[in-house]
């Protein structure tokens, strides 16, 4: 379930973002080769990617301060509950760039780690950008119905346990629609995949920014993170 209208959907991925993910803290300080290398990595990863995503709208109840009940799934998490305050519905969401990207990075890792690092960074930027695009389109539909989308909140954020990953994927039937699987250790495969809960609220002030496409970092307690964008 996805639509990629433009063949080069990835061409708009910001290169400074890729450089940042590759551990380059001051883009201004890096030479032309690194910009070039980032651009090539975006293009190679983009061509290897077969992005797919799935949304599913569910009812939300919060029987206690720190408990979210989503379509019968009961998740105990203060940060998730705080994030979803004011919402009566949520969208469950999963997206992936597909296993071709994992393979591409594995291939580079075997012979040229410098390339692998750049591809890893490009893939991180691409999946973010793909998720943003998908969520923005989804939000437009909800706006018409009077809802605002909160930012994506993923297992592993705050005290939202990673162990919820399996439940979330099963509930979304994610393998069928996207090919995402969960390893026995609870990690998503393909590795460049994202899962999240998106709160739906009628209250415009309800979210940090009210938009799921921006301000992702605002709610994160890890204020010292070097990738923080607020």
């Amino acid at each position, binding site marked *: 379930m996805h639509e990629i209208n433009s063949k080069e959907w990835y061409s708009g991925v910001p290169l400074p973002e890729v450089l940042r993910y590759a551990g380059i803290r001051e883009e201004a300080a890096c030479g032309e080769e690194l910009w070039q290398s980032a651009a090539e990595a975006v293009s190679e990863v983009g061509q290897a990617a*077969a992005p797919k995503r799935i949304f599913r709208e569910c009812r939300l109840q919060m029987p206690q301060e720190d408990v979210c009940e989503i379509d019968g*799934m009961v998740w105990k998490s203060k940060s998730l509950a705080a994030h979803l305050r004011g919402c009566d519905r949520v969208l469950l969401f999963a997206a992936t760039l*597909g296993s071709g990207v994992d393979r591409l990075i594995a291939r580079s890792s075997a012979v040229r780690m410098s390339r692998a690092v750049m591809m890893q960074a490009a893939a991180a930027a691409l999946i973010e950008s793909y998720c943003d695009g998908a969520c923005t389109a989804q939000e437009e539909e909800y706006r018409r119905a009077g809802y605002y989308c909160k930012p994506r909140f993923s297992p592993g954020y705050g005290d939202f346990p990673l162990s919820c990953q399996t439940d979330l994927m099963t509930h979304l039937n994610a393998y069928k629609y996207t090919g995402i699987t969960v390893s026995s250790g609870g990690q998503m495969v393909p590795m460049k995949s994202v899962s999240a809960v998106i709160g739906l609220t009628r209250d415009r002030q309800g979210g940090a920014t009210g938009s799921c496409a921006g301000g992702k970092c605002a709610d994160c307690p890890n204020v010292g993170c070097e990738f923080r964008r607020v």
Partner: protein
Amino acid sequence: MEKITDKLGKQLLFFDGGMGTMLQNAGLRAGELPELLNLTHPDLITSIHKSYYETGCHIATTNTFGANADKMNAAGHSVEEVVTAAVNCAKAAREQCGDPSDRYIAMDMGPIGRLIEPMGDLSFDEAYALFREMAVCGEKAGADLILIETMGAVYEVKAAVLAAKENTSLPVFVTCAFDERGKLFTGADVAAVVALLEGLRVDAFGMNCGLGPDELYPVIREMSELSSLPLIFNPNAGLPKQKDGETYYDVSPTDYAKSMRKAANLGLCVMGGCCGTTPGHIREMIALCRDVVPVTPHNKGIPMISSYTHAVRIGSEPLIVGERINPTGKKRFKEALKNDDISYILGEGIAQEDAGAQILDVNVGMPGIDEPAMLEKTVKKLQSVLDLPLQIDTSNVEAMERAMRCYNGKPLINSVSGKEESMRAVFPLVRKYGGTVVGLALDETGIPSTAEGRVEVAKKIIAVAAEYGIDKKDIIIDGLTLTVSAEPDSANVTLETLRRVKRELGVCTTLGVSNISFGLPKREVINAVFYTAAMTAGLDCAIINPKSEAMMNAYFSYRALCGCDPSCGAYIERYSAMTDEAAPAAKPGGAMSLKSAIIAGMGEEASKIVRELLGGANPPEPMELIKGELIPALNEVGDGFEKGTVFLPQLLMSAEAAKASFEVLKDVLSGGASEEKMGRVILATVKDDIHDIGKNIVKVLLENYRFDVLDLGRDVPAETVLENVRKYHIKAVGLSALMTTTVVRMAETIALLRKEAPEVKIFVGGAVLTEDYAMQIGADAYCRDAMASVRYCQKIFGNVE
């Protein structure tokens, strides 16, 4: 009851439609396990089967899609219990409908839901065992066939098919889920699926789920053009849509039937439906398609091998089989095999792909090596980074079988000969696992000296293969290249053999081309001419070194001349770029020093400089270069990284440049000097963690500083780390973990090492780790990045430079 396989291709057979859709309509909620309804609501399941049988369909699919031990045991049930109940539901429906002779029960097996290694963490053998249990229970409970469906990865298909065929006597049907690119989730295209499934000799295959009949039409059409086996088509009722959180499909029964009628004309043998299809869809489809006469499947005769992403068609244009993964006559390669240096072998594979190989020959046979284990390991490692089809090259039958079993696709096998013993050993493997096999034109009497004699052996090979059910499209004949300096007529005989094999037997050909020049000077010169002559005589698969300029010149020229290269596109692309390179612009500032090339991260330049220095009038001592240029360069970059003026990709580029120059130096370093190492370090990503890029970065850097790294990989159990610490008397272990969940595993690993090997030093790193936490779980050091790991190892090995 007539076996269903006897009806395939004689009458159009019909599958049922969606089970999940019917259950959803009956109130099944997202996340619930539908398989448990066989136990809790058998009447509901029976009534669904019955409503499908009543449409006139022949095959009911049991409600066992996810009834594997992974899921069932977690829900507190056994596979046998659930599968037996499911088959009983279908049997009850069949009885209620009467006329059981025309109604079959398919034991349904869907994907496990976890990916097989190397992409995921499920081993091939575990996947096999999960499918085996389901298949065996299905047969025991009375199913008539096994349906492996909605598959998104060919490796999983292979595990499931082998499990079904090796443990039951039921017919095996397979359908895969293709997406709008015409590919499976893991990237396999239609031809790759066809090659694999024909090779595994399933009874029928095709596609299901994914998309609707119209969207899948081009995909099933392509499959019908390639396949020699009966085809199955079970699409969804259109594309999935969503309303109020529920997924639905909106192609009506009438429209579905019309689309299926169009597809039926392609000559399909079995048709039904998947998600969103109901008894209404199946009833209308049967009404509209009943009179279509299926095409009895016929042999398309297309020689194909495959990897897990694509097939390579043999015979339509010349192909290059890279010969470099082979220890014969290669000191460096032998050393790599002896030291279990897989990354060197992977590097050889990738370099050959980059140079233009379409297939890679894999030979790891040498005295003193456990060839079966090494070949299996090499094949697995190669297919984890490369998607080229492999040619499994061994005379060791055990090694051959192990490699064929773990190979993710349909391989080329090198080789069988006309000897009775060889054919008896190899053909059963080809029949079981699938493959195209190289037939050497020699037998008990030796290598015939005439083309006539070799063609006779080829005929014998083809005839005996047929007795094993192996079609001649799966045989390619090696006309045998003998050294021309020893046998003046040998080239003529070989070329004549090629011509006659192609013309008289109609099978494809292969040659190990470079044997021709053995013992002669300037071997490339004669190799290239012989290669060209061989292509003209009908050589399909040339086993050559794709890194040889002369051979590739012959290849590109021949393709341009024989009409395989439209508008000479490939030729122009390759050689127009070379013209520019012929006159490189002089670099400003004159020649670069080795040190500055490494600092700039210019690998090719660095190794070129080393070669020039070594080949010059006053070649420096290798150790002098290492101490005077290499190490200072690395130190400078390392310091810069620590200060924040050099960034990670640049640090790694310098590391790679240093490695490239070191490889050149290695050849001239005398004896043990090249192996002077700083100490042995284990690296591992802990159990349950499959993210290994951080660990791999540390590895590159440590190796650069001449530490001997034993890389245990990812998802490594604590016991494995301990085992290796003991076995190799390791002084330092580096552990990496990415997630909060896997940091727990890191703590467990440290605890085990502390208890059993208290003397070992442990350094840790990973995205979620902090200094405090590292100390809390008992690590000796927290290394925030790769350079910190290097510094720590230098400290504990006492060799700070």
